[in-house]
């Protein structure tokens, strides 16, 4: 590079940085004094609510929809709006525009009198109830199921116990099966140090701050570097909006029902029963080989919450012949939401589900 060109380039860069610094100061005040962007804005109707259970139906955006309705089962610790962040960044909106009739089984924070809820309540009551209501509302017998994280795990358990049920196809994302591969969580919940009985007996429901801290400790610098990065990018409205959406969702953790937490810790974290086909629900054995319907499992390559090794056994262990695993770039959240998901997961999901929804 010759000298005059280099000087011009440096001058241009300095000008740009001064401009950005000014924008940072102006927009930084707005940032501090304003609420975050509105999340989960796709119009929907609450069909049924029973304590922690909430079943929604989203308003169709097309004149013609696929015959088979789609029920999304959300993870218990997080709010469903991660799948409906904002117009243009919403998986729900995308599915509606592709012509699906979308329902979501989302969760409210369990009340203190719901501390007794166990896995049995989710897989033998809440999910079947939601499926039945989807059938009634849509007038269709067949239902397709989509699960995210623990929502996928609960759907998987439900499917092993309802192999001849109305669910025709199952797509799931980042679904943990082998808990011995969730190394950090296993280490922290090791029975040598972690008295889950004492915790549940003291608190009732597992407190959200404890769950948040566990997620946070997996990537200890995320919060600090995230704050620095958002300040650095304060001039960029889209970046700030996106950051605020993800940040708000990540901090919006729900408590877990105490008995569910106790059961999950003992059966999965301590004894890896789901992987070993030893888990029982209400005395009924949960064997993944009983699942015979078409299954798509999307796994994130850089998932630090449900690592690849923890999610991988699902496809190997189920009895389906029509089954597919896709490993996509991204992390636990960026697999399903944000720019990468729009390019990677969403079209793959649509291509897989569309032909199975007629």
């Amino acid at each position, binding site marked *: 590079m010759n000298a005059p060109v280099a000087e011009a380039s440096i001058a241009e860069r300095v000008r740009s940085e001064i401009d950005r610094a000014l924008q940072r100061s102006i927009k930084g005040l707005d940032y501090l004094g304003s609420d975050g962007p509105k999340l989960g804005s796709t119009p929907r109707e609450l069909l049924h609510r029973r304590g922690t259970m909430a079943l929604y139906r989203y308003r169709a955006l097309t004149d013609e929809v696929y015959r088979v309705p789609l029920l999304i089962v959300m993870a218990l610790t997080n709010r469903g709006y991660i799948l409906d962040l904002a117009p243009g960044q919403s998986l729900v909106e995308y599915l509606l525009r592709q012509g699906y009739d979308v329902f979501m089984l989302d969760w409210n924070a369990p009340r203190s009198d719901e501390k007794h809820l166990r896995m049995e309540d989710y897989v033998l009551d809440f999910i079947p109830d939601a499926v039945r209501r989807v059938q009634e509302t849509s007038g269709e017998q067949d239902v397709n199921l989509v699960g995210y994280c623990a929502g996928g795990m609960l759907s998987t358990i439900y499917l092993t116990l309802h192999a001849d049920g109305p669910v025709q196809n199952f797509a799931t994302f980042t679904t943990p099966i082998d808990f011995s591969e969730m190394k950090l969580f296993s280490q922290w919940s090791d029975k040598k140090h972690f008295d889950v009985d004492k915790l549940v007996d003291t608190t009732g429901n597992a407190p959200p701050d404890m769950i948040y801290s566990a997620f946070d400790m997996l990537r200890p610098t995320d919060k600090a570097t*995230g704050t620095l990065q958002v300040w650095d990018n304060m001039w960029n409205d889209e970046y700030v909006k996106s950051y605020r959406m993800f940040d708000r969702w990540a901090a919006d953790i729900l408590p877990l029902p105490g008995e569910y937490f106790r059961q999950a810790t003992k059966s999965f974290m301590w004894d890896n029963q789901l992987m070993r086909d030893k888990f029982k629900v209400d005395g009924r054995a949960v064997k993944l080989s009983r699942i015979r319907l078409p299954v798509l499992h999307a796994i994130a390559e850089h998932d630090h919450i449900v690592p690849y090794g923890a999610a991988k056994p699902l496809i190997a262990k189920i009895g389906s012949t029509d089954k597919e695993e896709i490993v996509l770039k991204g992390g636990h959240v960026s697999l399903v939401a944000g*720019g990468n998901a729009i390019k990677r997961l969403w079209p793959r999901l649509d291509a897989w589900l569309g032909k199975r929804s007629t």
Partner: protein
Amino acid sequence: MADATPLDPLAMWREMLAQVEKGVNQLASQSVKSEKFAKAANQLSSANRARRKMTQALVSRYSEEFNLPTHSDIEAINERLQALEDRIVDIATTLKRLADALAPVASASGPARTRKPPELVPPAAAPVAAAAPAVPAAARKVVPARKRAAAGSPRAKASR
């Protein structure tokens, strides 16, 4: 992120930040994997819970003394309100279903459940579908969304 040049201190600062983040995360993940850490974290967590429980008991006692509602009173009211809301939602849904059953013509005005994926639409039907698409072409495009999202996706959060 700006292009890195040897004379760009801000780009260097950003690069340094990325390196620090990577290094600290690596170092921290080694520490948090240790048994010592697990033991200490659980002890701290237990101590915090015990402290919180004590504080709650103390605040409750004072609240009762001054005839003020305690945290559990408010929680109980909240739960009863929520239970009432649940019932209202159920009643509204039942009423809607009854109204739909009584007016089948109106209920049939929802979208037809006849959609087929593009690859299953027979070629002969394609021009008809193109002339009168069930979904407006603009609505089906995700390009603006992709552009908007690609413009700014925070790395730290999106990688979670």
